[in-house]
C-alpha cells in the first residue's frame, strides 16, 4: 500500500476525529459537573445543524459565522432545559433521568421531521470541495478548518474553566456539591450555566458539521451514540479526554477502513470502547471514582 495513501487517510482520520471530539466535549462537560447524561445530545446537535442550514439557505451565511449565534441559541436552550426540565430530576434515580432525556430526544427528532421532512440537507460553500496539497498529501480543506476550530474552541473552554471566576465556581460544584452549597454558590444557576455551555459547544459542532456531512433528522441518535463512545473512551468528564477519544475513534475508523473493510469501521470504534471498558473503565484520561 502506498505510504502517501496511508498518511493521507491517517491525517483525514485525525482531522475528522477532532470534530467528533468537539461534538462529544459538550456531553463530557455536562456530565462532569451536573452528573446527568444528556441522551438528547446528538439531537441537539441536529437542531444546530438545521439552524445553520436555514441561515445559509435564507441569508447565505457561512456556517463558520452562523455558529456563533447558533451556539448562543443552543446555550439558551440548554439553560432553560436544565432550569425547567432537568433540575427537578437531579436527585431522582438515573433511569428517570434517562427516560426524561430519551423522551426529549424523540420529541426533537419528530419535531425536526415535521418541520424539515426526511430529506438530507447540506450546505455547499465556495470552498466545500477544495483540497490543500501538503507535499504528496491531498487534504480536505473543510476538515482542516473545522479541526482547527475544534482545537480553538476546546482551548477557549479550557481557559474559561481554569481562569474565570465562573469557571472555577462550576469546577467547585463538580468537585464538591455540598461544599459549593455551604460557601453560598448558586448551584442551580451554575448547573444551568454548565448545561448551557455544553449545549453551546454542541451547537458550534452542529453548525460546523453541516460542512462535513448531510443532515437528516434521524442522524441525531447516531451522533448521541458516537458521542457516548468517544467520552467513555476518553474518560467521562475529562475535556482533553473527549478530544483524545474523538481522535482515536476517527483514526481507528479511517485505518480500519483502509486496511480491513470500510463497512467494518464502526465495529473497530466499538472494539476500542470494549477494550477501554475492560482494561481502563474510567477512560483513557478519566479519574478513578
Amino acid at each position, binding site marked *: *500500500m*502506498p505510504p502517501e*495513501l496511508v498518511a*493521507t*487517510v491517517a491525517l*483525514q*482520520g485525525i482531522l*475528522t476525529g477532532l470534530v467528533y471530539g468537539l461534538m462529544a466535549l459538550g456531553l463530557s462537560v455536562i456530565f462532569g459537573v451536573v452528573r446527568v447524561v444528556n441522551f438528547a445530545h446528538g439531537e441537539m446537535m441536529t437542531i444546530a445543524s438545521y439552524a445553520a442550514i436555514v441561515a445559509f439557505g435564507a441569508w447565505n451565511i457561512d456556517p463558520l459565522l452562523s455558529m456563533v449565534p447558533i451556539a448562543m441559541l443552543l446555550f439558551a436552550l440548554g439553560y432553560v432545559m436544565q432550569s425547567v426540565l432537568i433540575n427537578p430530576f437531579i436527585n431522582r434515580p438515573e433511569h428517570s433521568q434517562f427516560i426524561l432525556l430519551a423522551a426529549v430526544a424523540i420529541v426533537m427528532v419528530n419535531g425536526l*421531521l415535521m418541520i424539515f*421532512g*426526511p*430529506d*438530507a440537507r*447540506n450546505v*455547499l460553500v465556495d470552498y*466545500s*470541495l*477544495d*483540497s490543500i496539497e501538503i507535499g504528496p498529501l*491531498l487534504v*480536505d480543506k473543510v476538515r482542516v478548518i473545522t479541526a482547527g476550530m475544534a482545537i480553538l474552541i476546546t482551548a477557549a473552554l479550557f481557559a474559561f474553566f481554569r481562569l474565570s471566576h465562573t469557571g472555577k465556581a462550576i469546577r467547585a460544584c463538580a468537585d464538591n456539591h455540598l461544599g459549593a452549597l455551604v460557601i453560598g454558590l448558586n448551584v442551580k444557576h451554575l448547573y444551568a450555566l454548565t448545561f448551557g455551555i455544553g449545549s453551546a459547544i454542541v451547537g458550534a459542532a452542529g453548525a460546523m458539521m453541516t460542512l*462535513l*456531512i*448531510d443532515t*437528516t433528522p*434521524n*442522524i441525531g441518535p*447516531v451522533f448521541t451514540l458516537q458521542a457516548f463512545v468517544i467520552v467513555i473512551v476518553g474518560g467521562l468528564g475529562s475535556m482533553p479526554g473527549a478530544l483524545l477519544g474523538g481522535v482515536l475513534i476517527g483514526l481507528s*475508523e*479511517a485505518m480500519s*477502513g*483502509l486496511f480491513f*473493510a*470500510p*463497512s467494518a*469501521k*464502526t465495529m473497530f470504534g466499538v472494539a476500542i470502547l470494549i477494550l477501554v471498558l475492560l482494561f481502563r473503565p474510567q477512560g483513557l484520561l478519566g479519574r478513578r471514582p
Partner: protein
Amino acid sequence: MTRKLTRRQFAAGTAASAALLAGSAPFNIVRAQGAKLKIGSIHPRSGFQAQLGIACQRGIDIAPRVLKMMGMGADIEIMSADTESNVDVARSRAEKLINDGANVLIGAFDSGQSAAIAQVAEQKGVPYIINVAAAPQITEQGYKFVFRNFPTAPMLVGDGLNLMKGVFEKSGITPKTAVFMHVNDTFGQAMAGAIKAMAPRFNLPFQIVETIAYDPQAKDLSVEIAKAKATGAEMLMPVTRLNDAILMVREMVKQRWEPKIVMSPGAPGFYENQFYKTLGKFSNYLLTNVPWYNPRSPITQKLLDEFTKSYKGELFELNVGFSFEAVMIAVDSFTRAKSTGGKELADAIRQTRIENHVMAGGVLQFNEKGQNVNVKSVTLQNLDQRPKVVLPLDISEDNLTLPMPGWSKR
C-alpha cells in the same frame, strides 16, 4: 301455444326471483359489470424511503386523469396507505386496505415490504401488482395473485452489463480496470452477488481490481474513495442509494479522482432530483444503466405533461413511470375482466398485453410466474443536470459524452 300466467304463479315466480336475487346480491353488488375498481396504493411515504415512496404515489395519483385522456377511463378509486418504510407496517396496512375493500394492491418500492404484502395478497386472493422492487424470489414462490412490472435483480444486472458493452463500443473507450463500490445493504449485496455470478458470462473487457463495500449509514466516504483512487482504475462501477451517491461524488471531487467512466450497473442515486440539486455541475456525465421511461412514447409525453403541471420542480423518473403503469395494468385488466373479483382480475392481469406504454422495453406482458418479461434498461447520462437516455439509440435523447471531463474543467 301460449299459457296464461295465473296470479298464484306470478306471486311464486316473483318470490323465487327475489330469493335468488337476495342470495346472490352481495356478489352482484361487488362484482357487477360497471362497478368501481378500488386500487390500494401502498408505499413508504414516511421514514427513510419517504422521498421515493412519495415519487411512486405521484405516479399513482395522476394516473386516473391521464388514463381518462387516453380513453382508458374507468370508475376507479385510489386508496392510499403508508408503510412507514417498515416491513411489519407494510403487512398490516395491506391487510387493512383489503379489509377496507381494495380490489387490487399496487406497491411498494422496497423488496422487503413488497414480499410481506405479497404474502397477504396471496392469502386473501387479491391481485398485487409490484411497481418497483427487484428481489427475484418474490415472483419465484408460485404465487397466483402477485405480478411484477419491474425487472428482477438478475435482469437489472444482465441489462446493465450488456449496456456497458454498448457504451464502450459507442464511445470507443474501453477501460481495462474497474473498481466496484457498493452499499453494504440487502440491495447492494444482491447486486454484488449478481454481478459476481453473471460478469464472467458477459465477457467484459475490464478487470475488477478492487471491490469496496461500505456502510449504508456512512457519513463519510473519504477512506473508500482514497482506496479506490489508489488502484488507478479507469472506471468506477458504483451501486449506491441517494445519500451515499452524493457523498461519493463529493469525495471524488475533493480527492481529484477522475476515472474515464463512472457507470452504475443499475442502482438509484445518480438520476435523482436531490442529486442534481446538491451537486450541480458535478452531477454531469455520470452514467446509469437502469429501467427508464421511453422518452419517445406518446403516452410518456402525455404523462410527462400532466406530471409537470401537477408537480412543478419535481423530476419525472422511473418510480413515477412504473407506478403509473401499474395503475394502467389494473385498469386494463378490470376493463377486460368486467369484474372486481380477485380471481377474475388476476386471470385478466395474466393475459395482459399492452403494446403502447410508458417504460422502455417490449410489449407489457407477464410470464406464468407473474413477471414482466419485456422490461428493458437504458443507459442514462446526466447532461445539463438532468438524466437523458443515450442508449439504445432508437430512443436516445442526446449523444453519449465520454471520457468524462475533469472536475476542474466544468
